């Protein structure tokens, strides 16, 4: 029963929401968060943080691409594939492979997002060799046997069935279609009953081959391993993959705003979601937007939305705003859930808070506090465990940011002025948002 639920940021957003750090100046000396760049003989590059405090090695990697690469009519391919890497590889069928993995005590994980396929392993340092042999097989020679495919596919289909009558899940699908239209981002990650049925073992093999190329690979390692040893590991794990990925181009897409979607359903609460324009990482006002979002409805108990919606009026348990940066699209989202008879009051309050930010910008004190938070929170949110450090290093690489990014970040945030934030607030928050309402008796007009 947390006082406040952690917003479900995805990894990329977390990165955006919590960058840079005064602490980090102290970190390399104190904590060993000293990122080395390691180049293997076969040309694989990885970021490495050596740390012998706990006898663990954590490896994370990502291939660019992800479910937005799913072929039309075979939606759900990336997601299905990521469920099959521990279901047999090389000469080892599913059961034998999992038994070996369990014996060696390695945790192996694969997952897919819209923009990448992720993998990773956490293992006790003494078992690294044997564990990495299994990971090498999984990456390079997954079997994709018919039986595990059918089993995992039927689990996914059951998951799709389970959400079929869930009003919030269905509304969410409708929302994605409305916002992204024909773009791959509009499609459900897990696919549909029909698209999953169309996937054959050869589709999985061809897809893995097209996605698992070294040109789109990003690797990060933290733990009890040195650079020389890691070089050999990298070649074993990734050295035999093809040099180039075979990715199909994905178009940029601006979310379609200025529309209302109302899903009437007899529920005890009305959930409210709004989408405003976002901002690209490369935009000169990106850091100003990060700070503006933090003040508006960011990750602390001190934001304007938190104060107005929850603290002063008790309208909702959670309310927040999130700046989202996908590879081909960006947006700013606000979400909350409120007692149904007070939904229109809540919408009015949120719109007032947004308007006020767009009209007047932040106060100097708010900006100062937000800078301190975003600068200080980096180490606490991103470097608090091996897994967090490894994920952060992969995300930094995916975003095209250098190893020095962590030390550059405080100055980038520090340079932002009240005028900068006011300008970017006007730019993002004066647009008429897309609004999604799910609750009893909701109508499109309620969104106003």
């Amino acid at each position: 029963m947390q006082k406040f639920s952690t917003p479900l940021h995805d990894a990329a957003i977390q990165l955006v929401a919590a960058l840079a750090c005064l602490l980090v100046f102290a970190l390399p000396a104190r904590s060993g968060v000293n990122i080395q760049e390691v180049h293997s003989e076969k040309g694989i590059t990885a970021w490495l943080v050596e740390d012998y405090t706990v006898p663990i090695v954590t490896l994370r990697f990502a291939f660019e691409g992800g479910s937005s690469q799913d072929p039309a009519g075979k939606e759900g391919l990336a997601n299905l594939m990521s469920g099959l890497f521990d279901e047999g590889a090389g000469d080892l069928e599913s059961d034998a492979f999992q038994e070996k993995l369990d014996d060696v005590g390695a945790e192996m994980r694969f997952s897919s997002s819209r923009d990448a396929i992720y993998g990773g392993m956490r293992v006790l340092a003494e078992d690294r060799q044997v564990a990495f042999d299994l990971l090498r097989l999984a990456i390079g020679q997954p079997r994709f046997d018919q039986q595990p495919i059918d089993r995992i596919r039927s689990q996914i289909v059951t998951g799709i069935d389970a959400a079929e009558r869930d009003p919030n899940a269905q509304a969410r699908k409708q929302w994605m279609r409305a916002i992204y239209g024909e773009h791959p981002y509009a499609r459900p990650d897990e696919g549909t009953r029909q698209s999953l049925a169309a996937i054959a073992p050869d589709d999985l093999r061809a897809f893995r081959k097209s996605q698992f190329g070294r040109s789109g690979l990003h690797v990060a390692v933290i733990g009890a391993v040195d650079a020389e040893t890691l070089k050999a590991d990298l070649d074993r794990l990734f050295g035999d993959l093809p040099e180039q990925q075979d990715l199909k181009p994905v178009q940029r897409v601006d979310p379609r705003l200025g529309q209302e979607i109302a899903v009437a359903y007899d529920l005890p609460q009305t959930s409210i979601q709004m989408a405003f324009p976002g901002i690209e990482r490369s935009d000169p006002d990106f850091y100003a937007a990060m700070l503006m979002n933090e003040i508006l409805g960011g990750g602390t108990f001190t934001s304007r939305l938190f104060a107005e919606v929850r603290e002063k009026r008790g309208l909702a348990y959670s309310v927040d705003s999130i700046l989202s940066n996908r590879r081909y699209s960006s947006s700013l989202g606000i979400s909350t859930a409120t007692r149904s008879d007070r939904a229109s009051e809540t919408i009015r309050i949120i719109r007032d808070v947004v308007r006020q930010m767009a009209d007047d910008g932040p106060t100097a004190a708010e900006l100062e506090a937000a800078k301190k938070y975003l600068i200080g929170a980096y180490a606490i949110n991103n470097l608090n465990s091996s897994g967090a450090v490894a994920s952060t290093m992969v995300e930094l690489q995916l975003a095209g940011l250098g190893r020095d990014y962590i030390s550059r970040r405080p100055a980038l945030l520090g340079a932002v002025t009240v005028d900068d934030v006011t300008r970017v607030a006007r730019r993002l928050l004066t647009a008429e948002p897309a609004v999604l309402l799910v609750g009893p008796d909701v109508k499109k007009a309620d969104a106003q």
Partner: protein
Amino acid sequence: MTPTGNRLCAMFLGVWLGFGVLPAAADTQVAGETKISSFTLGNGMEVVVIPDHRAPIATHMVWYKVGSADEPPGKSGIAHFFEHLMFKGTTNHAAGEFDRAVAEIGGNNNAFTSYDYTAYFETVPADALEQMMAFEADRMRNLVLSDEVIATERDVVLEERRSRIDNDPSALLDEEVSATLWQNQPYRIPVIGWMQEMKQLNRADAQAFYDRYYTPNNAVLVVAGDVEEEAVKAMAERTYGKVARGPDLPPRERPVEPEQNTKRTVTLSDQRVSVPSFSAQWVVPSYSTAEPGEAEALDLLAEILGGGVRSRLYQELVVKQRIAVSTGASYSGTMLDDTSFAVYGAPVGQAALEQVETAVTREIARIADEGVTADELESAKKRFVRATIFARDRQTAMANIFGSTLATGGSVRDIEEWPGRIEKVTPEQIKTAAARYLVPSRSTTGYLLPQAKGGN
């Protein structure tokens, strides 16, 4: 891989992990790196220090030995509601000042309430530790509660209840399954409270609860991170040490369960449900109430029966028979009183829920009749011991292990000795635990079903 998670079994899952196998002294050396220490302040506040020097960060937690199971009759939800009120102003600090101080240094802060404890935490740069202690010690005694903040915050927890429970058929069912499993023990009441009672909670209730339970002698301080014992001790003396000891609280003796002689079922049909599922539960001993070795055996039983993709339930129902989309078992051992053991499952494709339930029951019977193999017990033990090493990678995980254990009657020594006790469990003990506790005719089962056709 389980692409769809089970939604039925969303009860509170306590994790009870230990540290290295070690000497029995209060001070402990692990792998030459981490020296965990514990001591008690003059006013009775217990302190645990877990050094971790990898980053200049510290996690500061105060655990109060009071949870929803300690609430007065008719006041359900007061423990959790009061947790929210702890974020309001004190005689020394206006509401929001503490939150702003945490945010200003990039920290995280929050709190959580369970059946047996309530905990408040901040993760901050290590050099802000004493400031956090000062704020936390201040609100231990100096909270100011006005009728106005009570009314607004009560609306917030009512919305929290609607979000977490009323909006979600599986959460609603879980709540009523618990109320059916527990007929006498206070775990039958949901942590968040019953709606009609939550609506009546008032300032007098909150003040009485505060005065009774929020004292240093009813609290455990856990500090994990870039800190040393001596410095923590000095800071704790300067802050918490100044808070006067409260009256001694009576022992936490609560009503216990009578023997269960029936098979109980609870069914919820909801139009939002498409895939049915079930969860069966039994009352079993916790680490606090078990005979020596019994809780460890139950923990290993849950792991072997349904702890992941290598478990018997998953292999048999999901992989071999292909009748379940998900299935597993869980044991919440870190509780003050007797606790629950649960199994769950949901069908895949054309399979029926009854098939899944029958197959789960058969797997339990196989262990109760034939026991487990030495190999699978060995693998399960290895997984547990490994988890204790992985836990050391996250200072908040370490702080949670120590805090929850000490708040439910355990000791630092119990945690240290846990891997050794796990090693000693025999296949015979697992078999005995299954046969003694997981009896189908004395289970409490919840069914989450789609709305019957033609119904509304």
